């Protein structure tokens, strides 16, 4: 078998080799940092939620605690979740809590500021199973609930003195 060389073929090979080398030169540092950035996390059925809740609140294994809290209240009533506008952590906590609150129906309130007194006062307590505060202040007139790390509090309405 003979291999015929031509200027076109040589240019073709050089072009693609050059592109390949340049691509690798740019990609390898990025891929390397991606591979070495994180250690292996503990595994488990709720490992994503646990990791996020630990990141946002500092509490370990909070997912199961949240599920247990929601299971202890009436499933026919809604879970009300308060999050702060323009606060990605609060919003993320709210959505993660809504994820874990199944089979309850949920209602997410995104409000300005950290005091949801107005919104809470308009609610019918008979329709609410629990209220969740994500990086929000619980109104003083509402009894203390279960606190998960810093910034996440769940008040079961049966705990509330009616």
């Amino acid at each position: 078998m003979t291999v015929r060389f031509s200027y076109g073929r040589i240019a073709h090979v050089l072009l693609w080799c050059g592109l390949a080398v340049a691509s690798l030169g740019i990609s390898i540092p990025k891929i390397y940092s991606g591979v070495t950035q994180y250690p292996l996390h503990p595994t488990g059925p709720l490992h994503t939620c646990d990791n996020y809740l630990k990141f946002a609140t500092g509490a370990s294994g909070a997912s199961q605690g949240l599920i247990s809290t929601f299971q202890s209240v009436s499933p026919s009533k809604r879970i009300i979740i308060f999050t702060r506008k323009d606060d990605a952590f609060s919003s993320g906590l709210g959505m993660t809590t809504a994820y874990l609150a199944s089979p309850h129906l949920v209602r997410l309130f995104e409000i300005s500021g950290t005091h949801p007194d107005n919104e809470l006062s308009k609610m019918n307590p008979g329709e609410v199973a629990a209220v969740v505060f994500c990086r929000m202040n619980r109104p003083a007139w509402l009894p203390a609930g279960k606190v998960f790390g810093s910034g996440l509090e769940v008040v079961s309405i049966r705990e509330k003195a009616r």
Partner: protein
Amino acid sequence: MSALALLGAFGTLLIAGYGLLTLLARNETQLSLTEQIAFSWLLGTGAVSLLLWIFGLFVHGVLLPSLVSIICLSLGLIGWRRMVPRPLRRMPNPFEIFLGIIVVLEIAIVFYLSFVHTLGWDGLLNWEIKARYAFANGGVIPATYFSDSGRAFSHPEYPLAIPFTELWLYLWLGEADQFCAKTIFPIFYVIGTFLVVAFGRRFTGKTWIGLLMAAFLFFVPQMTVEVGSAIAGYADFPLSIFYLATIGCLFCATEPKNDAFFRLYAACLALLPWVKRDGLILWVVAAACGVYVILRTKKSSRHFLALFPGLLIICGWRFYLAAMHATQSADFLPVNLETFSSHLDRILPLLSALLAEFHNLPTWSLFWFVVAVGVAYLLGQMRNPGTPVLLTALFVPIVLYLLIYVFSSWPNYLQHVGLSISRLLMHVAPVGFLITLLAISRRRVKSPAPVHERGVTCAMTDSERTPVIALA
């Protein structure tokens, strides 16, 4: 125990897919082992998720997985009786072995990365959430989920191929496990590499080009380490693999008497809108390419039936969502001419954002520049019916995706673009690999391509024939 359950879930899935593959290939073509595994996985995930959804309308509880398992095994029995023939094996040369080792190492790293990272945000709250809720409700998503305004953030209207593949794992495991759910995504990466190798060999007749491209798949950061990549648990990467299979099969079907690949194209095409809502756009483009191939290669009019399964899935899912009173996404304004004309001023900033994304080296490296060079090579080969298919499949979805943002309801639509454009571009990126491998091989195809013998390859070059094959 978990490993055994996972093995059972993946096994039934592959068995079902293999059964469907034998029905579609009908002994008319030879498929390599990697092709058989790849198509079995894609068809299996599609079939199992569709069966779970359809049977879930009538039964739930233990009966649902039992029924689906029985169908999977029945399909496997069909597959066992009608094995797809494999081409003669030849000894790989040292360069191919070297590239093969690199690809295997890359696959191992992708698996490692997948387990190091948790599910991404959308992976958890848009996709896995549906699997978890369905598992907790006997295999069926509760009707209240679709109409619950409090969970509208999780896009109840998104289709179920990925969540119900996760659900299939959960049903075998006996529990909803976010860690185990992640296993399906690196498998899609494996399938992607298999398909790139297989299409590389079919398009160019050279195995090493396919292996080289498969090795480079790993070096596009958007595919391996970025948000929405193969490790994040999003539906975008699986969608890009389904699109790769669809367009690759259509390219192979441009050759005369290659109906097996046209049927595989039809099957993968149908599953595009079932994987992600954006798959509807890819379906429209791939279907238009299919119509072009039918007309250009003068296939019989019955080939238009290939569009029917996809239409059925699209309409069926729409009807189901309407029946469930599903909350609709608030991300986009109503798509009509009035909205379009009133937001035309967005076009230039959108184009600018798109160009900026192409130049985004940390995300894409030189990928789009390489593809542009590949496109320049292919422009001289427009007479080959496969070339316009590849170029259309690459460019038209990008244009349509860009136009979608004209209808964005976000106050800052450029933020909307910034958050999702890289993932949308990833849908068509594997097609860029097909273009690149054709350009590297400098294959000049005469139309219509006459080289076809029991479908061994789309193009078998003499230079690749080993003495074993020549003797055969």
